[in-house]
């Protein structure tokens, strides 16, 4: 097998370790401290925010408009409608602002 093959396999093993590792560590404790539980409850908002916020820095007016509209639609509608609203605003705004 080529070196590339083994790089891919090693990368896959490293990735699987991150996906199972947190659970393996946490499950060794019989009782979860309230502060740890509070921290775990914060994980979705905390991690997913970091995938959005820095992208706003490199963005322009078209992207900002799309994010604001999608965010407002999300207050009322579901995930699919906010996503489609953002995508439409983005592609229309890029036609005019590019």
């Amino acid at each position, binding site marked *: 097998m080529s070196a590339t*093959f083994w790089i891919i396999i090693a990368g*896959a093993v490293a990735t699987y370790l*991150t996906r199972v590792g947190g659970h393996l560590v946490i499950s060794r404790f019989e009782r979860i401290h309230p502060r740890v539980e*509070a921290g775990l409850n914060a994980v979705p908002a905390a*991690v997913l925010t970091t995938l*959005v916020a820095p992208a706003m820095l490199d*963005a322009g007016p078209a992207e900002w408009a799309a994010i604001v509209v999608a965010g407002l639609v999300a207050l009322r509608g579901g995930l699919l409608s906010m*996503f489609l609203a953002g995508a439409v605003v983005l592609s229309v705004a890029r036609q005019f602002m590019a």
Partner: protein
Amino acid sequence: MSVDAVSQRSEAGAFWRGARLSIPVIVASGPFAMLFGAIAVDNGFSVFEATLMSAAVFGGASQMVGIELFGHHVAPWLIVLSIFAVNFRHVLYSAAVGRHLAHWPLAQQAAAYFLLTDPQYAFAESAGQKGKVSFVWYMGAALAVYVPWVLLTAAGALFGKLIPDTKALGVDFLLPIYFLGLVMDFRKRPLWLPIVAVSAVASILAYKLVGSPWHVSLGALAGVALAVILPPHHSGVGVAETDIEKLP
């Protein structure tokens, strides 16, 4: 109708309910699978190797980083370390979501963790809040993304040169929009706004000062740290459900 037939029908229903959730994920991630396949071949991967990487790693950002470094002939251990660093946020997902999967047989858990992507985590966490997470439903949501991800990588690798200008279509910004939707999904949770604010500021600072991909882990740790440091009752932990409802 026999009991078996009824339970089979409801299992198929659960699978497709999960798969339906993933429709926006397929739309948002599909172009990246094709792009990855095209770039991978451009950087010296064979079609088989590109497809294998999508099937074995199943993590878009880390695959892009890996293939970029590979193209620059960086030492193999550094490529693997970079993939690990980009995927490090999954440690937090895995720690948090384990509560909802622990009642499954071990082999099912092992398979579920292999497919634990950002949206998959958000779906499972959200479902676990409302009740028990079913394995069939989980696999419906996960495989609906995994199968197109692998197939579109192969398509991109085969026909890479034919891919049109994705920037004009806005493809590069679809994922941030989608991730914002996932963030908004959790807005009913205690401390949501303070956590989002702290993570946003911390990740932007880390992005500027430390650089990618560490801004993800550092920004996330800042938000989690806020919830850990504040007295637990702010997070609604150790308080009975009925008491939370009475809070203003």
